[in-house]
């Protein structure tokens, strides 16, 4: 197990390294530069460029950046000139993560239950209802979902606040809007995976042992059916926790999503890189956790045990 984890960690570090390198050179291929505003005089722009080290050879810039990165330093933003990228991430990530965790808890718990109920009642009305929810969830984009929730719960019925992020009641609508898509895909995958497991021979064995249906579902089906859900959950967790531009914009939540999208528009090299590396590390970490959890859920995956 230790060997397996070490191998995974080394692979993860290499992945992040490759990611940084590729993104570092790619951002410089984008049209435009950070300081091209018409308001800036030529001298000011040159000063700015030399202040950020853009006048040095690109390889030197690369090694400097990598050196700083090893110390966990993402550098200064080129748009919000007095703030470091670390500071901005530190300020905004907690909001995104908080919202993301709420949305995930909602999505995974309800999604799994719906999937299991649908599979147990295959072909009946309950199954149809669950599948309908899944289809609606996957086909309605989150910004429409968010707007609908705001309209009905916030404005028409006046039950919940429409925007901002100031307390528990503020979190409900954005979390629901964000959760819906994940919920739908989790329930869809769980349903089909449960159905596949249901036709396995060992379920018949379990039945031949005289076990109750409840026991068969809980002990024999769910654990074997959960693997595909875990697979999709890795990347989903990463993207949901690091914030979504649309939901955060609709609900006026001071999360990371806005900065990520803006940084590209602004040619804010340090921000693009910082955000990408942060997101990349997070994604790699989530996948690493999923890989390790595989081993917990399925003994066949455990490698080098003993």
């Amino acid at each position, binding site marked *: 197990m230790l060997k397996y984890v070490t191998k995974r960690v080394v692979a993860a570090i290499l992945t992040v390294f490759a990611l940084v390198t590729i993104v570092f050179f790619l951002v410089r291929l984008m049209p435009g530069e950070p300081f091209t505003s018409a308001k800036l005089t030529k001298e000011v722009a040159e000063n700015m460029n030399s202040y950020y080290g853009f006048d040095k050879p690109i390889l030197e810039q690369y090694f400097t950046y990598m050196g700083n990165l090893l110390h966990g330093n993402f550098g200064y933003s080129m748009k919000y000139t007095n703030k470091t990228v670390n500071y901005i991430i530190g300020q905004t990530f907690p909001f995104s993560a908080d919202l993301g965790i709420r949305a995930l808890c909602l999505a995974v718990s309800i999604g799994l239950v719906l999937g299991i109920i649908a599979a147990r009642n295959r072909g009946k009305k309950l199954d149809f209802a669950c599948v309908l929810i899944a289809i609606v969830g996957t086909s309605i984009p989150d910004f429409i979902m968010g707007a609908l929730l705001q309209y009905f719960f916030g404005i028409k019925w006046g039950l919940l606040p429409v925007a901002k992020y100031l307390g528990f009641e503020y979190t409900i609508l954005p979390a629901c809007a964000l959760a819906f898509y994940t919920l739908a895909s989790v329930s869809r995958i769980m349903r089909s995976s449960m159905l596949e497991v249901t036709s396995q021979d060992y379920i018949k064995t379990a039945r031949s*042992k005289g076990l109750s249906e409840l026991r068969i579902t809980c002990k024999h089906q769910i654990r074997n059916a959960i693997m595909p859900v875990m697979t999709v959950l890795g990347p989903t967790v990463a993207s949901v926790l690091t914030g979504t531009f649309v939901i955060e914009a609709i609900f006026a939540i001071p999360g990371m999503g806005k900065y990520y999208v803006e940084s590209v528009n602004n040619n804010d090299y340090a921000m693009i890189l910082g955000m990408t590396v942060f997101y990349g590390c997070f994604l790699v970490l989530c996948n690493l956790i999923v890989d390790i959890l595989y081993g917990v859920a399925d003994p*066949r995956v455990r490698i080098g045990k003993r």
Partner: protein
Amino acid sequence: MMAEKENILELKNVVYSFHTYGGEVKAVRDVSFEVRKGEILGIVGESGCGKSVTAQCILRLNPEPPGFFGGGEILFKGQDILKMSNKEIRKIRGGEIGFVFQDPMTSLNPTMRVGAQIEEVFLGRTGVTKKEVKDRALEIMKLVGISDVEKRYRQYPHELSGGMKQRIMIAIALVSRPSLIICDEPTTSLDVTIEAQILDLLLDLREKLGTSIIMITHDLGVIARLCDRVIVMYGGKVVERGTADELFYDTAHPYTKGLMNSIAKLDTAKGEKLQPIEGTPPDLFSPPVGCPFAARCDYCMDVCNEMPPEVYQLTDEHATCCWLQHEMAPDNDMKKKPEKKGEVR
């Protein structure tokens, strides 16, 4: 001597079908037989003849829907299994009747330790402590020939070999000391040395525990080695029944004869072809009116296509369902001069 023993299980005119998109598949058509205490009953027939469905009917393990009973009775110790509630049938499953499935590779839950899978049989059965349950599990594992049981007990199915897994399956079927075990082709997916061990094990268990066994197979070698009595199924019907000796040495149905002929023999000369039974099994969506085997039968007569054959009782045990035994039938090497004409069963 055998005939005096009491019946533990009796199937009477069982009909079982499946609803499919193509229509109703009549998988089991009017099957009757009985299993006696302590005997090994073989059920032979080619793939798709209804052996497995019949066996699973006994524990109502066929998926319903699409499957459904079209009639008949299954009496286990005098009680009709078909009339039981789900709760009652669950007591029979695992407790009174054990079931060994065909493929040990896929029949064990890959995410559970084998020990736990054996112990699960005791769930919901009262009067045993956790310690007793574990002792029973270890004891049964030893009994089915597993060495180093403490270690095996904690292992997962993927850590065991195929033969070992089938032993675990047999252990699961045996652990609550059932009075009947149904083995659905338990050795088809194993190699011959392991097969021999498993068959010896079953014989040994019958000796020690007095368990009745239903052995479903398409391997006549297994039948010869193991079974006291045999029924031959074809097209969802029983076509011949009798003691193993009667079936092998006094074959009375052309299908059984075809099965015997198609066995590869040690003295088959090089280049000599095996003798298959020409043709394919009947379409069970619309089974033939007459004898199901008529289309493939070398002895086929006009009557065979028109009327279902009667049952001819040849000896106490031996019966066949074939028009060749009729007194009007022309002389043939199948004809046994029935002692008495049995009623249609």
